[in-house]
């Protein structure tokens, strides 16, 4: 297995699992944490990831297949989605190449994402870390074959407030990484409403509340 990336929480290796392209995600301890907290958090996150990957699939959301889980060594072996790029990379490239017309070109992608998040929320699955780096485009980006990844912070909940926060995290991740993409988020929300017909209105009202909280919080000190 070859180390291809070292993030804040985990090392990612690429290799092979009995003939299938495989990614090994190995979470490592953070020395700044109290050991009890570190062990607890790490185990919690691996389990959360495995459970979310499973539940997403059940509801028709495309995610990698899990091949093997070793909680004691904090490892997950899963399907490597080869022939893919992150949505982040694709947006950056599109904006670079097409400047002003990029936004309209990216709208179908935004809608697809909104649909997927809507489906997740409709099934009470909260990703917890929605960013454009946690979405893969498999094959030709124009096919909009999106695979969701990185579910370490995920959890299952029905509260509209939490879904609103999940969307808020996505909005801020989108806008801080890809300047001037406000329109894309609007498109995303429209598709979200269609995919989560039952709960969308309440979620979006909670999203507005969280957005205002950032603006209305009395800052002291």
């Amino acid at each position: 297995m070859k180390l291809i990336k070292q993030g804040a929480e985990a090392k990612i290796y690429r290799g092979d699992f009995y003939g299938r392209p495989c990614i090994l995600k190995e979470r490592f301890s953070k020395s700044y944490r109290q050991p009890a907290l570190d062990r607890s958090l790490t185990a919690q996150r691996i389990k959360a990831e495995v459970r979310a990957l499973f539940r997403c699939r059940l509801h028709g959301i495309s995610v990698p297949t899990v091949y093997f889980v070793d909680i004691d060594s904090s490892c997950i072996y899963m399907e490597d989605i080869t022939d893919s790029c992150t949505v982040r990379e694709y947006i950056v490239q599109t904006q670079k190449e097409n400047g002003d017309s990029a936004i309209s070109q990216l709208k179908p992608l935004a809608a697809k994402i909104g649909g997927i998040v809507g489906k997740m929320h409709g099934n009470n699955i909260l990703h917890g870390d929605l960013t454009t780096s946690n979405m893969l485009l498999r094959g030709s980006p124009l096919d909009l074959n999106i695979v969701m990844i990185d579910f370490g912070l995920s959890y299952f909940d029905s509260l509209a407030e939490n879904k609103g926060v999940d969307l808020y995290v996505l909005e801020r991740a989108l806008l801080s990484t890809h300047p001037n993409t406000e329109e894309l988020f609007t498109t995303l929300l429209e598709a979200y409403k269609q995919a989560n017909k039952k709960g969308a209105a309440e979620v979006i009202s909670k999203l507005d509340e969280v957005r205002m909280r950032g603006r209305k919080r009395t800052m002291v000190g």
Partner: protein
Amino acid sequence: MAEHIANQLYADSSIIMLLYDELENSKEIRKCVIDGVIDASLLKPKLILDKFQVIVAATRAIHNQKHEKMTTKTIHSEILFCLSPSKNISDSYRNFGLGEEDKCILVVIVDDQDNSKLNALQQLIKGRQLPLSDLHSTADTSAIKKIYKIRDEELEVCSLLDAVVTRISSKEIVTL
């Protein structure tokens, strides 16, 4: 046509798989295993889509063995248990284990470095050996979907094998 598969995570371990149809003596073979004369997993090929399904279950089982965390008594029964979506050991034997009347069998042997178990089994089994690739034809996809509770919604985003494999690998963590 027996396939030897080395364990990728534990260098000292390996498994051997054998597939037969036109089986004449399933009762006898079962008795040998129950009596402890033979040390192997006897599986119903009907519920096995692909050798990878067994590999994933065996990976889990062997890991449990190495960490002294097995739920069942032997590595061979553990493989059966890991294949099964149920937490009930007898259910796993009943559903995935070779039945007395079965005409097909998939055998899995763990850690048989000198091929002694393999040879003994090949002597014992009265049937027609098939290549493992034939598992696709002996598999009963609707039975597989039923036992693993796989719905069409899921199959829109992955293959049946992917769905089965995820269940096997995630079993201990996800409450099905």
